[in-house]
């Protein structure tokens, strides 16, 4: 009798797939709706990077906190933020995760431990250190995760946070989502020490590099790092090598990418295809079970868009709510 081939039971595998698929369809729908001019502000899409978000965040509870980036929709969905409220937020409508006043780059849900997307590159890392310090005092084994892109990893805030987390032995995990481009600048050009593991070592942190398009590689490595942090083992860095299906922002002409690059990564480095091949190949989940999830997710996204379009805009009176000063 062969051993069960996966680290997760079937319901958890199905849930991981559902979250990855929800992120993908959410982003692909935004890609279309943004091009129609339906959405205010800017959006940066996470499509192609789902295995990293779900592989890491899927192992967290609501008491664990994450500090996201400008590319934060995937982190939100992985952390359990309601996609219906998210869509309203991105459409700038009442009922959104932040009352429709934050939009794509300030979307947050503290009840889920999602401390927010962030329009300032590298700004999430010190926030994660703060959450890590709080977790250390609370002594409940909670952790904080700072997501940062390969570009923002050059920011002083990120490097200072590595030092702070190491000095205070905080339960903070720094995840470098290396999709190869800092906006339009290739990592090969913009990062002097090409290894993020070396960077971590410079601050006394252990670091690990994984294939960020392989859910199981991310899940296993992140699981060990999170377990270590929960047990007081301190901070660590996880580099996920991944791919970005869309431009830096929607509307980016992407002239800096090689011709055929996007077709190639969609064909050969699609984390959802890899996941589906692994679980169906092992006979644990059938293709029709995955297809059923695909349909449910598409229905959910359609409903999210319909509800978002129908929802009212915030009013002038909403300006003075959700702020620190009492009016």
């Amino acid at each position, binding site marked *: *009798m*062969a*051993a*069960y*081939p*996966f*680290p997760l039971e079937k319901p958890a595998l199905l849930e991981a797939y559902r979250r990855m698929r929800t992120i993908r369809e959410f982003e692909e729908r935004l890609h279309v709706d943004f091009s129609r001019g339906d959405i205010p502000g800017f959006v940066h899409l996470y499509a192609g990077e789902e295995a990293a978000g779900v592989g890491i965040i899927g192992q967290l509870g609501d008491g664990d906190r994450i500090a996201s980036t400008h590319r934060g929709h995937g982190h939100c969905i992985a952390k359990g933020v309601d996609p219906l409220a998210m869509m309203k937020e991105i459409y700038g409508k009442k009922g959104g995760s932040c009352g429709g006043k934050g939009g794509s780059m300030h979307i947050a849900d503290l009840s889920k431990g999602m401390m927010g997307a962030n329009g300032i590159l590298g700004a999430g890392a010190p926030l994660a250190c703060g959450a890590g310090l709080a977790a250390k005092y609370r002594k409940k084994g909670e952790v904080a995760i700072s997501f940062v892109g390969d570009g923002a990893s050059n920011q002083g805030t990120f490097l200072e946070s590595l030092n702070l987390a190491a000095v205070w032995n905080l339960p903070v995990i720094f995840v470098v989502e290396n999709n190869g481009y800092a906006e339009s600048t290739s*990592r*090969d050009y913009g990062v*002097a*020490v*090409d*290894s993020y*593991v*070396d960077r971590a*070592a410079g601050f006394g942190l*252990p*670091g*690990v*590099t*994984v294939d960020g398009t*392989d859910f*199981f*590689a991310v*899940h*296993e*490595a992140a699981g*060990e*790092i999170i377990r*270590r942090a929960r047990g007081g083992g301190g901070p*660590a860095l996880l*580099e996920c*090598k991944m791919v970005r299906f869309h431009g830096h922002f929607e509307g980016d002409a992407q002239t800096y990418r090689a011709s055929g690059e996007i077709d190639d990564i969609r064909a050969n480095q699609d984390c959802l295809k890899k996941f589906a091949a*692994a679980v169906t*190949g*092992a006979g644990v989940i059938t293709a029709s079970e995955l297809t059923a999830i695909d349909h449910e997710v598409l229905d959910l996204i359609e409903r999210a868009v319909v509800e978002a379009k129908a929802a009212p805009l915030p009013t002038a009176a909403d300006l003075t709510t959700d702020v620190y000063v009492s009016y």
Partner: protein
Amino acid sequence: MTTIGLIANPVSARDIRRIIANASNLQIADRVNIVMRVLTAAHSLGVERVLVMPDSGGIRALLQRHLARGHSQHQRWPLVEYLDMQPTSTVEDTFLAARLMHDKGAAAIVVLGGDGTHRAVVRECRDIPIAGLSTGTNNAFPEMRESTITGMAVALYASGRLSAAQALAPNKLLEVSINEGAQTDIALVDAVISTDRYIGARALWKPEALSAVYLSFADPQAIGLSAIGGLLQPVGRRDPGGLAVTLGHDPAATRLRLLAPIAPGMVRPVAIAHWQAMPAGQPFTVAQQGGVVALDGERELAFDPGDRVQITLRENAFPTVDVARCMQIAACEGLLRLPSTP
């Protein structure tokens, strides 16, 4: 023109063992220092050209900075020629580089990496001698050596001062075949059967997931899974045959328990059911139904129940530069002696 190749893997020693076992991380800057020492030592003994695998992990970029500073009274190096290839940051880079070095007539290839990197070079190219420098995690195959000495030994051979008979040593390897050759691969040191069915984070560190270990050689001083065989019944790198060990998770089948350093910093009890010599050329069929074959410490090949997995030991499979012997002969034959006046 006396030419050698140089393959330095920027991504070895980056896996999960840094978290679970405090494994070392050899920084890119130090890898480049090692490369520079190979270059200068090889140049001192007549190597004129070094073909280098390009990478996008930082080695080439830093190496370029060193080389751009120009020759000095302390440092001279051969012509450094990067292979014409686009790095993908995957093992495919090593495969392609080994092939190109073969085509361009490299007399030998210096490899910086762990067991996995060396395996990739040999898988692609079994007829060019390699000289390994350990920069990975579980290094049973490449030796821990000062790269200056390795560079000198390679140059003694590449420049013709030492013959193949003097400089080279034959090595064993393990061939893995799934379903009569539908899928094949090799391992230089160990092919291990795991009950995992996914590649995941690649490394193996849980003894309870292991069911069998096949070894081309087993050194009692080795780190990694080959240590299981090394501490059970050592087999030398140059000895005939290998070793097959069946692990016993059923207490009734366990013949003994053994403490072994299965990863850096991890000395774990391993339950042994059975072990036997592996004669060369005799296929061993894997009993486990469904799982993963890990090659030289990394999960590589998943197989399903019903698949027929066979492991065969091969002798005289590929040559390596025997650094210790090269230097011994160089000393005995006075190859490095110079005239008394410059």
